[in-house]
């Protein structure tokens, strides 16, 4: 088990009905609660008014190109895997107006658009998505010029994480070392235990805000049996990942795969629709759109999610750099699993499996990578 940093609070145990008291505390502290809820035949992220909005009795069945909501008769609140949404929606919104400009005599005046962000408490965040959050932090906040829009939204965030004991058919966080156990970046972590009719939570604070909130939940001390149970459930989850990926030597192997025939085969299947990048919790690329009004007096600059699967994405004067589907797919996968390491120090993939589930034709990043690694080990295609 990951060593516990000193600021983590003592583990405690509480009854499922007392989860509501957590919601009450968050509302008292003026947080808007965002968490999993059933909508449009999926477990999506939405505003939660009470624990009644959580998807009790619902789970999901996921495979390449397929997500199905399913019923179950268990009492858990969090018995499902990652849904189509991630924290990215809230921290790096799909479309943001950055500034407006108005004509001013012969020139023009730029007015920065003041971003508004309230206090958000995310409930039920899995380890994969917390690692994705850490990656977004590096992309948007590290360095000399942090993104003010992201930084503002990020600064008012509270994270109630949940240890994942129900990985899905396309999950591979274990391979990416990004789960299923929550190990960083949370205010409070919960493990939901349902065991022969006994249903309870084990919680632990990971920050000062987490401690304050945890103190408001009616609780008792967690026993060593409870902690062993948490450990067993997480170990069990590790064996139930629907997918796996061999990450040893991954970067080096992918750098040697530039001319691999597999890219062409995948390109024949790839729709270039951009779904994988949209649902990915770490894909951060965006485009700028400048719009004017009809009179030409006022202009706006909008930032919108973009995808490296469009030809406009790599367009520079005279044409698109990545004009073939093969070059676009290769760029995306190698960025996620190799160049990202050089750029940001970690993989750009957390193993949540969303790109596999939501690819309309079920293209599987783990399968593609395995195919490349396998024949790389038998032959050595040259690297350009």
């Amino acid at each position, binding site marked *: 088990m990951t060593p516990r940093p000193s600021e983590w609070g003592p583990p405690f145990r509480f009854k499922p009905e007392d989860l509501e008291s957590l919601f009450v505390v968050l509302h008292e502290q003026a947080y808007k609660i965002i968490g999993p809820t059933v909508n*449009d*035949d999926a477990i999506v992220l939405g505003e939660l008014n009470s624990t009644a909005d959580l998807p009790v009795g619902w789970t999901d069945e996921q495979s390449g190109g397929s997500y199905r909501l399913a019923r179950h008769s268990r009492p858990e609140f969090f018995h499902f895997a990652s849904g189509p949404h991630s924290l990215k929606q809230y921290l790096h919104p799909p479309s943001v107006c950055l500034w407006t400009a108005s004509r001013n005599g012969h020139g023009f005046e730029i007015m920065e658009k003041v971003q508004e962000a309230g206090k958000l408490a995310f409930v039920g965040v899995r380890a994969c998505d917390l690692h994705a959050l850490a990656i977004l932090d590096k992309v948007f906040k590290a360095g000399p010029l942090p993104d003010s829009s992201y930084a503002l939204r990020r600064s008012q965030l509270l994270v109630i994480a949940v240890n994942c004991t129900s990985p899905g058919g396309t999950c591979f966080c274990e391979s990416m070392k990004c789960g299923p156990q929550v190990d960083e970046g949370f205010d409070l972590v919960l493990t939901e235990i349902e065991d022969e009719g006994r249903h309870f939570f084990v919680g632990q604070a990971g920050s000062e805000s987490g401690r304050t909130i945890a103190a408001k939940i009616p609780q008792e001390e967690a026993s060593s049996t409870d902690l062993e149970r948490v450990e067993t459930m997480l170990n069990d989850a590790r064996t139930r990942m629907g997918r796996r990926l061999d990450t040893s030597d991954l970067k080096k192997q992918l750098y040697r795969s530039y001319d691999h025939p597999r890219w062409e085969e995948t390109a024949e299947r790839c*729709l270039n629709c*951009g779904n994988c990048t949209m649902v990915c919790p770490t894909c951060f690329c965006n485009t700028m759109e400048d719009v004017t009004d009809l009179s030409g007096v006022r202009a706006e600059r909008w930032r919108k999610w973009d995808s490296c699967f469009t*030809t406009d994405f790599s367009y520079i004067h005279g044409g698109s750099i990545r004009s073939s589907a093969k070059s676009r797919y290769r760029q995306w996968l190698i960025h996620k699993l190799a160049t990202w390491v050089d750029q940001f120090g970690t993989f750009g993939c957390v193993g949540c499996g969303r790109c596999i589930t939501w690819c309309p034709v*079920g293209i599987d990043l783990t399968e593609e990578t395995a195919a490349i690694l396998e024949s790389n080990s038998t032959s050595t295609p040259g690297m350009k």
Partner: protein
Amino acid sequence: MPSTRRPKLAVWKFASCDGCQLSLLDCEDELLQVAEVIEIANFPEASRAVVRGPYDLSLVEGSITTPHDAERIHKVRRASKFLVTIGACATSGGIQALRNFADVNQYIPLVYASPETIQVLNKSTPIADHVFVDFQLRGCPINKRQLVEVLSAFLNGRKPNTPPHSVCIECKRQGTVCVMGNAGAHCLGPVTQAGCGALCPSYRRSCYGCFGPKETPNTHSLSQWWSSHGMMNADICRAYRGFNAYAEAFRRESEAREK
């Protein structure tokens, strides 16, 4: 404003239902502003008063289906500095291009009481097959926000923001749950150009491809996937035979599945 003279706008109709040109009247909030910055010089759906050409901007709706129209479009082109086609009929031949897949002479006697009075071309074709087109605005019907954007871009001498990427990108930006992955729907979104605001998926319906093929459309792979999930070739063929049936990528795919 860079210029004091208001540019002259003309709206032309060919074989179409009028829905796209009515989108201009549908711009209720922006209509007065449009009329302030553009002189609506020739728009029979809005006014009988016609100002003579030439015109700075022509919006052309409809496809070419008759010998008469095949000549008339050249006159329109000559009278227009900048010609923008609007809607699926004008950009791909429209729903009436379904007859391109059959023999029109077999239809005529079934439809018209006096077939000898009908003069019609063998195929319904997009405007760009006949004259040079400066810009094409897709959709069945076009999206009015995109229309205002095109007008605004024209007036301000900039490129319009009408991205050629998939409906999926627009759909995901809205946070809509994918109807294909999630409900197994036969959605054309991954091969269709954005612009509608992912309207159908936001109502849990699959995309009908109203905006025609997106850039780099991989219709073959999408059909293969449907086929491997039990969809019959006849149904796949029908999926592509909609408002943009004669657009190259959709036409090729439907013909491949027709055999």
